Structures are given as structure tokens and as C-alpha cells.
């Protein structure tokens, strides 16, 4: 590890290296993916360099709840729990999930036939797409989108059809993720006879949008009309603020039979490194996900599944009560969100206040930061993030990483901050932003 780390140079080197090793046409990894995953060097360079405040990567630096760590330690002390378990999901976990989501969805869910446990929501998305999406199919994706959707669709030989959320005119002073909406006519125009599915991410990463029931109904009506699937990535389902309610599109009339809903232990319990997620849906679709799973990784780690099961049983008994971790975490994060919004505004940036999730998208164009000295062909937000990491020692993710080529000009003035960070991290970020104008550009 070099002692003097030049993040900008490293970013360039690794983008170049990473792109050159990828020989899948069109499956370029986004900048977001690079920062999180490539070669470890960028991640470790930013994370290991204590002088950089890392608001880029989307994982907590706050500890997970004690009881879930204890559950894992306990599980690993039981011999049988160190060996293979049921392929589609450890029995105690799928039963707990069936109970929890049965309650939330107000329907009976079959733990054996309607649930799959996989390696994170990522694994569930992969099994869904490999199992159900055919070569030549079209899949509608809403921009900005979590960056793995497009490469997964391309790997299945299908075509992504993109539609952006756009900012609707408002007299409100403060912009929230609720102001970003789909144009219903534009959405309807994206459905064709080749459309197999639409992917929605609710709450949305990076915007934090929590789709209203009416918005979901518009999407549902189109799915039913065109007989398409809906893949609903709901990993941030428990993190909604301002009294907003998370609505599951799978619960709308006519939708259960055509929706796969995906959840995440990592996001639910603040343990992203455990890489466990689940997909829930009707048997006639789930069996295809299960086929992919049994041929791709067969089964997930047993002690992790047992520990997550214990976590879910506990939360189920406390659901809707203040002590429920889902409620505690949401409350904690709402405060952090508000704190961040204040210091970002004070620095002259314009946040889009998220209704859910743990990211905040921020318009930096008001700073008028001159970056003309940097590489021309990159979007402004990529350049801004590189410059900010180097000059201000503050890391973020450029939002155009979450869009297709055509929409980059809409989103290239935005960067994404993660606020599920401990107080010292947020304070350090606040200091940097307070002093922003004190250092000459």
C-alpha cells in the first residue's frame, strides 16, 4: 500500500484497468460499483486513508444491534449449524420471513414455495433475472437506478429500456425526493410487446424516493395491461421518514401473481457484510428463481441464516412498537438526515431531502466549481467527486453513475452522500463543508 495515496490517480488507474479487463460489450461497471468493489484498492485507499471522510459507500459505520451479533456467535457454536442447510433457505429463516411478510402483506405466505434466500438482494436479483428474463426481452428501468440492474439484464441477453424520474415544478423552497416523478405518458410509451418486466426500487437508491400508492398503481395498471412482471427491490423498506408509509406493489390488486419482492438482511439489520437477502413471490415464478439458485450457489451460509432468523423473530414480536429495531433505526436515521441537510444547505449546496433510504442526493451546481482543468470527456459529477476527494478530503458518489448515457446531462450536477454514519463521521463532514469557502479554489 503506497504511503502517499493519490485518490484521483488511483481512481483513473483503476477505472482504466477495470474497463480493460471487462470484455463484455456494454457491461461497463459504473463508477459507483468501482468505488465499492473494484480490486479493493480504491475502497481501501479511501477507507484506509483516515484523512478522507467517506460518505461515498453505502454501508453503515455504526455498529449493528448487539443481539444480532450474539445470535451469530451462538449459531456458530452449534455443530449442526455449521453444515449445509436447506437449499432455498434455512427452515427457521424462511418460516420467520413468511410470518413477518405475511403480517405486513396480510396474506399467508408459504415458506417453502414462495421464498428464496440468496447471497444478498444481489443474489436474488440475479436469480430473478436469470430465471425469468429471456434473450431479446425488454426490461424497463427507472433512472436513477442501482447500477447492477443494467449489467444483469445485459448478461441475460435482454435490453434495458430506461425512463428517468424528473423534477416537477414546485413552489416549495425545499426539494424532496417526492418532487421527482415519472411522466405517466412517457412510462406508458416504454411498454411494448417485448417488455418482460419493469424493475422498481422503492425506496429508491440514490434519490430516497418513496413511491406513493397512486404512483405504484399507475405502474401496476401498465403491468397488468401488458402482462409484464414487476421486480420490486425493497431493500430499504424499513427506512422511511416523515410519517411516510412504504407500500408494497405486490399487494396491489392483480399484482401478487406477477411480482417478485426483494429484501435484505444487510439493510434491515445494518450488516451488509453478511450478504443475505430474500425474494418473495408466487410459486409459479419462485420455482424458476429456485432453479437458478440450486445450480448457481446451492445454499447460503447456515449460521448467518440462523442469526437473521433470530433477529426477525425478535422484531416480529415488537413490530410497530418503539423498541422495534426497524423503528429505532428509522428514527435515528431521520435525525442524521436532517443534520446532514442543514450542513449541506449551509455550504451552498441544494439537497434533495430523501423520504426514505440512507442516501441524500445533492445539487452542487450552485457552487459553480470550475473544473475545466480536468479531463473533458467525463461527466461533471465524476470530475466534481474526484476533485472533492482530493481537495476537500470528502468522498461521495457521482449520481450519473446511476443513469444511462442519455440521461447523464440531467443528473450530472448531483452527488450522493450516505448518512448512515456515526456522529464523528458526520461531524467531520460538517467541518469540511463549513470551511469550504475558506480555502481558495
Amino acid at each position, binding site marked *: 500500500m503506497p504511503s502517499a495515496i493519490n485518490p484521483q490517480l488511483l481512481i483513473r488507474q483503476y477505472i482504466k484497468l477495470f474497463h480493460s479487463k471487462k470484455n463484455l460489450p456494454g457491461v461497463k461497471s459504473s463508477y459507483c460499483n468501482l468505488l*465499492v468493489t473494484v480490486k479493493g484498492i480504491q475502497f481501501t485507499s479511501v477507507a484506509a486513508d483516515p484523512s478522507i471522510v467517506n460518505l461515498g459507500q453505502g454501508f453503515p*459505520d455504526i455498529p*449493528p444491534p448487539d443481539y444480532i451479533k450474539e445470535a451469530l456467535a451462538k449459531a456458530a457454536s452449534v455443530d449442526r449449524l455449521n453444515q449445509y442447510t436447506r437449499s432455498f433457505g434455512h427452515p427457521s429463516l424462511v418460516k420467520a420471513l413468511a410470518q413477518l411478510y405475511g403480517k405486513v402483506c396480510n396474506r399467508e405466505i408459504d415458506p417453502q414455495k414462495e421464498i428464496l434466500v440468496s*447471497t444478498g438482494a444481489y443474489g436474488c436479483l440475479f436469480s430473478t433475472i436469470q430465471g425469468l428474463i*429471456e434473450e431479446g426481452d425488454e426490461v424497463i428501468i427507472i433512472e436513477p437506478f442501482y447500477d447492477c440492474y443494467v449489467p444483469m439484464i445485459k448478461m441475460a441477453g435482454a435490453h434495458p429500456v430506461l425512463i428517468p424520474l424528473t423534477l416537477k415544478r414546485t413552489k416549495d423552497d425545499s426539494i424532496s425526493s417526492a418532487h421527482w416523478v415519472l411522466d405517466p405518458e412517457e412510462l406508458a410509451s416504454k411498454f411494448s410487446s417485448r417488455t418482460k418486466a419493469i424493475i422498481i426500487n422503492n425506496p429508491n437508491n440514490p434519490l430516497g424516493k418513496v413511491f406513493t400508492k397512486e404512483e405504484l398503481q399507475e405502474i401496476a395498471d401498465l403491468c397488468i395491461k401488458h*402482462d409484464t412482471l414487476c421486480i420490486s427491490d425493497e431493500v430499504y423498506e424499513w427506512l422511511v421518514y416523515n410519517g411516510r408509509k412504504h407500500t408494497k406493489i405486490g399487494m396491489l390488486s392483480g399484482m401478487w401473481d406477477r411480482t417478485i419482492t426483494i429484501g435484505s438482511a444487510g439493510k434491515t439489520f445494518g450488516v451488509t457484510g453478511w450478504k443475505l437477502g430474500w425474494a418473495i413471490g408466487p410459486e409459479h415464478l419462485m420455482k424458476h428463481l429456485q432453479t437458478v439458485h440450486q445450480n448457481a450457489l446451492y445454499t447460503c451460509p447456515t449460521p448467518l441464516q440462523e442469526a437473521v432468523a433470530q433477529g426477525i423473530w425478535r422484531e416480529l414480536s415488537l413490530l410497530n412498537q418503539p423498541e422495534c429495531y426497524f423503528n429505532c433505526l428509522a428514527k435515528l436515521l431521520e435525525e442524521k438526515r436532517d443534520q446532514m441537510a442543514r450542513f449541506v444547505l449551509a455550504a451552498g449546496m441544494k439537497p434533495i431531502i430523501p423520504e426514505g433510504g440512507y442516501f441524500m442526493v445533492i445539487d452542487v451546481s450552485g457552487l459553480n466549481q470550475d473544473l475545466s482543468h480536468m479531463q473533458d470527456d467525463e461527466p461533471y459529477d465524476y470530475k466534481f467527486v474526484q476533485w472533492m476527494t482530493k481537495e476537500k478530503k470528502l468522498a461521495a458518489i457521482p449520481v450519473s453513475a446511476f443513469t444511462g448515457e442519455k440521461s447523464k446531462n440531467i443528473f450530472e450536477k448531483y452527488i450522493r452522500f450516505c448518512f448512515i454514519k456515526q456522529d464523528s463521521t458526520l461531524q467531520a463532514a460538517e467541518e469540511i463543508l463549513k470551511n469550504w469557502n475558506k480555502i481558495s479554489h
Partner: protein
Amino acid sequence: MWRRTALSLGRRQLQGGPRGHANQVPPASFRMSHKRPARRILGVEKNIWLEFTEMAAKYKSVDLGQGFPNFSPPDFVRQAFSDVVSGEDCLMHQYTRAFGHPTLVKILAKLYGQLLGQSIDPFGDILVTVGAYEALFTAFQALVDEGDEVIIIEPFFDCYEPMVKMAGGHCVFVPLRPKGTPDKPALSSGEWALDPDELASKFTERTKAIVLNTPHNPLGKVFKREELQVIAELCVKHDVLCISDEVYEWIVFDGNEHIKIASLPGMWAQTVTIGSAGKTFSATGWKEAVARGFQRELDVLGRPESYLFQLPRQLQEKRNRLVECLLSVGMRPIIPEGGYFLIVDISALNVELPEPADEEEPYDYRFAKWLIKTKGMATIPVSAFYSLGHRKDFASYIRLCYVKEDSTLEAAEKILKEWHLTK
């Protein structure tokens, strides 16, 4: 170097047709139903483990079927796990580097670098996955293209075939045959071998890879250097990859040596070698490794206190115990040189089985099911490890796992002895 490296999406889109199996394009009305699965998963829905683990659980049998130990993993690995889980560093519960946690890939590079006599780049030459299963899946997805042929040695761990099919490849099978005579039957896995001419005949210009599994599941065969040399020479000659599944590499008996085909001349650059923490540290349910476990083992490699020194010796005793028992009741085991399993020839037992529900079902499947239901002992039929077309020829063996704690082996012995007495 290889003719094709990764998925060629453009080509696939141009082709437009189904992958590898069905020749018909479904009618438009069927195609657009939301219920339609992707064609890549047609034909890979069945899975022997789902079927037999369910039965073993249902009939509460002594389980010598699925290959997992029912004794504890070693203390030092469990301690390492416990330290990491309960430790102060909460980042241990968050995302790590995609291709493998830095501490883990560094120790793997060191350990395998030593074993292979080769410098291994931890960040360029290693990928950590969810079990060897996912490593295999990733290898096939990345390296096998539609229409490629992949040579598989029978009997084979059952996942290879569906994985090759999902990648759009075409399986070409070549069997290991017992080199014995009626007077002197093959009694050890070492006496099962490939015919070099037959093997050579399987390589064509469409061959992309050959899959090797050593030590072998289900036979327990540990391929000798000369045998690997034959395979290596063909790989080099035909410019073919070798995917070498070596999950049982530490479990080798009777002074046999596990040889890594990647260490043979010319092979490093065209071999993907696969290992398993689950099989190394007897913790199959982890599907991930604790780097500290490997560090410890590297420090004591080859010494009596090394777990990897002790484990094969312990398992050899268990193997011997089960073999003795089987022999004493008149059964004919094939003595494995390594791995977790042995196979037993059941043809001479002349057991009368009830009429099959499915006429196509091979004899060993029926036998294994009968054994669970009537004797309370779970095993796996070996024809599950053969391609469909060859199952009927190899339907007279069952596979037993001896990597079990003593009480399980005792219970199995009791069942076998009682059965013998009633004959």
C-alpha cells in the same frame, strides 16, 4: 490465447435462437406470458440433493448421504469466527472487497503460492465465492460460450452438467472404468481409470474446457501424476482450459499425494483451480473462510499440530472402520484413496425391491430409497453422478459418506449387521 474468453453478447443476440436445447421458438402468445421462465433454465430443474435430503429427513434415517461432517469444525477456526463476530471492529459486518476480503486473499495467495511453487497475485489471481459451487458457476458463466463443448469425467459431481447447460455449453462425457477382472475385481478407487485413447477422442475443435475433480467425488480417486500428465498434454495440444475442482485436496489417505494439475508444465495459464473452506475446515455451512484459520495452518503446515495434518489421519480411520464393517457383512466397497466418500457395489446383494413407481428409475435409486424406508439408512445412488444416457450402465452402486462422528458410524454398523443377520 483461448479462442473465446467471455460471453459474446452481440453474437448471442444475433443468433436469437434458444440456448443449447430446445429447437423450437415458442409461439408469440406463449412467449409474452409473464409466467414464462427463461429458456436457459429448462432441463436443469431436477436436483438429487433436494430429493434425497428431503427423504433422509422424512424417514429420520442414519444419514450417510449428503456430504457434510456431523462433528465440529476445529476449535481454532470457531474461535476465530467468534472473535470476528463479537469484536470491536464493526466494519467486519459490512461489505468488503468484491473479489475477496483482503486478509483472506493474501493468505490464500501465500498458502497456494507455496504449494504451487508459483507467485500468486492476491488481487489478480484469486476470487472468493459462496462455496466452491459458486466458483464453478462463475467459471462456467465466464468461460463457456454457447455451443462450446466441455468434457466431463464420469461419474461426476452432479452440478457440473446443469452449470454447463445454463451457460449454453454442450457436455461430452468420458467414463472412469474399473480396471479389474472377474477374478481380480478393482478394489480401490486407484484402479478406476480413464482410457487415454478414449479421452483423446473426446477433444474436438469445439472443446473449450475439461472438468477435473481430484480427489474425486463419489469414487475417492486421487489422480496420479501420470494420469494428470495425460490430461495436461491434451489441454495444451488442443488449447483447452482445465477447471480443476480440488475441494477435497487435504483429505488424502494411505500416503497418496494430491497433485495440482496447475503445477504441471504449461498448465498454470490455462487452469482454474477451485478450493473450499467448508471442506478444509469441516464447516460446509459457512461457505466462506476465516483468514485466520488459513494463517494458522500456513504457520504449522506439515507439522503434527496442523489441522490439515490431523484431519486426513482421522478420516482415514473412519474410512477404514466403515470399510471393515461393509466387508464383514459381505458387501463390496471400492476403497477410496481420498475424499469424503466410498462407493459400494450392491449388485451381488440380490435384494428384491418393490415395483418401481417410475419404470425409468435406475436400480440404485430404487435401492437407495428402499434402504432409507426399510432400514433407516440414507445413502446416495451413484447413477446420479452419470449423464442420463449412461445411468442404466452404472446403476449398481451406492455412495456412503464416512465423514461422520463415531456415534453415526456405530449406528450405521448396527443397521448393517442386523440386516446381515436377517439374510
